[in-house]
């Protein structure tokens, strides 16, 4: 147990000296000789005290009378239902809402730590305009009026001089995304960046090509066999799904985990396969080969509900387990056995579609193989198999009237569709967008509007992103903290945290849920709904924001539901009318698919027409040069991406990100745990600390993303650990636009 004091925190002062800024120091009496003597004497046998006789417990006692406010977590994107306990205008505890299907009454460490996001002493407090050079850390405090007037005038100037396409908009998955998109479409820019191409483009596009939907759901309740391809659910926590996986394992489901690292999920799995990076495709192609070769597929399903079986069969004929073993370093017998076990357990079995699958340039093919593997065993809408996706989060809700959007004729800077014909508009190719700002090609971007996103940490090659910033005349960032991106911006606007604001409503399962202010916004922070409306009006786009305020927006959304805002605030959730909810759709097993053929496409005409392979095909990943390592990345349970490193409760749990390295290569380099090491790629080099561990392949090293902040506005996270964005190179898959995040190789030397 560590007892390291945290001077950074204890030195902070807070207006009401609330925890953790405890200042009360108990006056200590001098310990007398009599007391000391007692310790060495035999203690008489004292009878147990009854509750009445026992002294009252005088430790910290949270209030017993308090208000409970229902809201939604935003410590990650899973959006669990929260019951916030409030006393005298202060939140003192967050609990999981038992009625919310994503929480099931529990919150993960990040959700539990939400109050340290709300009460972070480093929070942005008021609008700031840059006073010195970019990244110099000199700011001028301004009023919201002045800040919004200034932002609007710069945006109008850019639109007038260069056209609306010169302004880039980017954000990350959030409940107010519809209004953010409303702003950029009304403004008229085609340039929209999201995190998606750094995350799951390969998975989504492969499912669109195979099933005509973005991501099939999984039924853990009766699954007997689960194959996880790098999906580290025990550390990359998706609360309810993580709970479901633990329960499935406890029930006896077999879980096969492919990962070059012995993650905590690997530790819980029935079988861990330390696969060679970039070769998961070979493993899955061999499973397909085995299942077809030995006629273990679901013949009825394949015949009635799929197209392209014969073509698939001949395409995979060479992908034998022996062939795969030579690629992925998993014994052929194991591959053969897993194929048999999986097919026998089907339809109560699934190969997980995974999530952040942007690992190698061949990841789209890997994801296609996984989608096809599921189709072959006929697990669609079967107990323990894959289930159809639900509706959108705004489905069935009232809408706010608005005029049509202006026509956009300019090319998108991210190359969709002119360079990436199959990448859906909403996914985009964020790395390409950044590179084209830098190149000024096909035209020069001039401004960037960034909302709740941190591209300076998330995009590979931070150096390039900073250079791209230097090409721009104007950068505005809206966030709750002075993250690295805000630090390099011209204007920074403070948003209210999720515990202080309304957001558009969320439909989950068969109910609508509300995010509402648990406490009033602190400092001068404002909700996004307010910011976008105020900005829209100043841009002459008021017609696109026809709501009085946040409550009015929600009332309009609630109109078709027969529940008032006041009732919903009290209840936290309300059942959606039957037939309109996401769950209503799930209940009907889909036996037609939203693909050109209306069937599951084992061979895809869309891919063929775009001159891509219609069936999954082996693509050799680049080998790591001698003496170099694949640089792996992946989450820890205690942090969310690039957002939580300054949260004092989570910083206390995981303060930095040492470099994992296997003992053999460490020994060769004279490296021991705790030693400083240089990690270098063609993209840059960082000095970090080594963690020598058996839990990783000898040809890989690993570091947790999100650390190595350069913003001095984050007192705990500043320079804690290093950033993988300083090392990652940009590799873009031409089919899905995915960034291949594990394709960068690095050298490691003792510092």
């Amino acid at each position, binding site marked *: *147990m560590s*007892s390291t*004091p*945290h001077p950074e*925190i204890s030195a902070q002062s807070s207006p009401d000296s609330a925890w*953790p800024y*405890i200042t*009360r*120091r*108990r006056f*200590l009496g001098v310990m007398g000789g009599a*007391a*000391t003597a*007692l*310790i060495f004497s035999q203690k008489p046998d004292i009878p*147990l*005290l*009854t*509750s009445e006789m*026992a*002294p009252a*417990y*005088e*430790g*910290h006692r*949270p209030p*017993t009378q308090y208000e409970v406010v229902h809201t939604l977590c935003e410590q990650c994107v899973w959006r669990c239902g929260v019951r916030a306990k409030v006393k005298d205008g202060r939140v*003192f*505890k967050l*609990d*999981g809402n038992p009625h919310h299907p994503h929480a099931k009454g*529990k*919150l*993960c*460490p990040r959700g*539990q*730590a939400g*109050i340290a996001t709300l009460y972070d002493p480093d929070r942005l407090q008021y609008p700031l305009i840059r006073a010195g050079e970019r990244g110099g850390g000199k700011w001028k405090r301004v009023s919201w009026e002045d800040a919004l007037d200034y932002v609007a005038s710069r945006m109008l100037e850019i639109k007038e001089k260069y056209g609306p396409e010169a302004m880039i908009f980017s954000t990350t998955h959030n409940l107010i995304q519809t209004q953010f998109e409303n702003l950029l479409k009304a403004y008229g820019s085609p340039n929209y960046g999201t995190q998606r191409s750094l995350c799951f483009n390969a998975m989504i596009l492969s499912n669109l090509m195979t099933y005509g939907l973005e991501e099939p759901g999984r039924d853990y309740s009766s699954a007997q066999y689960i194959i996880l391809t790098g999906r580290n659910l*025990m*550390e990359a*926590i998706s*609360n309810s799904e*993580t*709970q479901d996986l*633990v*329960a499935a*394992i*406890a029930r006896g489901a077999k879980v096969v985990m492919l990962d070059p690292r*012995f993650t*905590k999920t690997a*530790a819980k799995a029935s079988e*861990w396969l*330390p696969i060679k990076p970039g070769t998961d495709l070979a493993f899955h192609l061999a499973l397909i080969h085995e299942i077809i070769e030995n006629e273990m597929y679901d013949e009825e399903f394949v015949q009635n509900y799929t197209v392209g079986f014969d073509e698939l069969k001949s395409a995979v004929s060479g992908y034998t387990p022996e062939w795969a073993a030579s690629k992925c370093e998993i014994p052929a017998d194991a591959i053969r056995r897993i194929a048999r076990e999986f097919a026998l357990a089907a339809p109560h079995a699934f190969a997980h579609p995974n999530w952040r699958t942007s690992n190698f340039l061949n990841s789209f093919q890997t994801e296609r193989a996984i989608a096809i593997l599921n189709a072959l065993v006929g697990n669609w809408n079967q107990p323990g198999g894959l289930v159809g996706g639900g509706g959108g989060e705004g489905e069935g809700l009232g809408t706010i009237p608005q005029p049509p959007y202006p026509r956009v004729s300019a090319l998108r800077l991210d190359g969709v569709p002119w360079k990436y014909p199959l990448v859906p508009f909403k996914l985009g190719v964020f790395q390409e967008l950044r590179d084209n700002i830098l190149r000024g090609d096909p035209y020069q971007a001039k401004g960037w509007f960034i909302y709740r996103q941190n591209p300076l940490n998330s995009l590979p090659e931070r150096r390039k992103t900073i250079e791209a910033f230097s090409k721009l005349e104007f950068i505005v960032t809206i966030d709750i903290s002075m993250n690295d991106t805000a630090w390099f911006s011209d204007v920074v606007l403070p948003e209210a945290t999720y515990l202080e604001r309304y957001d558009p409503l969320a439909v989950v399962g068969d109910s609508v849920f509300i995010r509402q202010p648990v406490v009033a916004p602190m400092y001068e922070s404002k909700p996004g709904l307010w910011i976008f409306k105020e900005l829209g009006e100043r841009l002459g786009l008021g017609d696109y924001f026809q709501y009085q305020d946040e409550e009015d927006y929600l009332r309009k959304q609630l109109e078709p539901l027969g529940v008032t805002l006041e009732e919903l605030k009290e209840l936290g959730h309300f059942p959606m009318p039957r037939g309109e909810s996401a769950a209503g759709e799930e209940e009907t097993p889909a036996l037609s698919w939203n693909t050109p053929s209306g069937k599951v496409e084992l061979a895809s005409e869309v891919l063929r027409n775009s001159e891509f392979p219609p069936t999954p095909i082996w693509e050799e990943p680049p080998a790591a040069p001698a003496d170099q390592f694949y640089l792996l990345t992946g989450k820890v*349970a205690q942090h969310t991406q690039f957002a939580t490193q300054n949260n004092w*409760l989570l910083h*206390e*749990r995981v303060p930095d990100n040492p470099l994992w390295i296997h003992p053999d290569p460490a020994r060769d380099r004279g490296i021991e745990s705790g030693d400083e090491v240089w990690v270098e790629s063609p993209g840059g080099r960082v000095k970090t600390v080594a963690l020598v561990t*058996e*839990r990783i*392949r000898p040809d890989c090293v690993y570091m947790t993303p999100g650390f190595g902040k350069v913003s001095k506005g984050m007192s705990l996270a500043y320079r804690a650990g290093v950033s993988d964005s300083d090392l990652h190179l940009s590799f873009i898959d031409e089919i899905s636009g995915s960034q291949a995040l594990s394709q960068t190789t690095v050298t490691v030397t003792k510092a």
Partner: protein
Amino acid sequence: MTTNLKGMLTHIEPPKPNPQAGRRWAFVIEPDRCIDCEACMVACSVENQVPVGHHRNWIAHREKGKFPYLSLHFEPENCHHCSNPPCEMVCPTGATFRREDGLVLINYDDCIGCRYCMMACPYDARYFDEDRGVVDKCTFCVHRLDAGQPPACVETCIGGARHFGDINDPESEVAKLLARHEVYVRYAEAGTGPAIFYIMD
């Protein structure tokens, strides 16, 4: 986080419910279900306003083997609220006391901060609160128990590894788990009578 394991693991005969004996609060932990996410630790820190740098619960790691033959087990732990607590025995002022329902608590007005209890505890469950000048530790969230709620760490356990209840009540979840499974405890040989029971794999 890596924590050194405190004490040997000893297979014991699970206690049988004794409805006549009154309440005995206890944890029954399924290490197989712990995913080491540390939600319990953060929940405890917030619930009990534990000073930064200290904690009242933790997760011990047991890592074995060499690549690729590895195993990694997690064991959530906190104060064992022993039936024969060494901390109580060494307390010179009687500040540490044991309640009828088995809770081992501290009367902070009587605690002089001598920290003998910290040395006596084989589980390293206690810490010195520098600001208040007293020793502190897990209370099984006594304030929540008194309000009819489970401890904060139990309520939020994502893996469902932490179970809590009255082992003298045969109908309780913990009594049923003890009746069905083999269990082990830490430092049984020290005779502390810990109230955290771990279910065997």
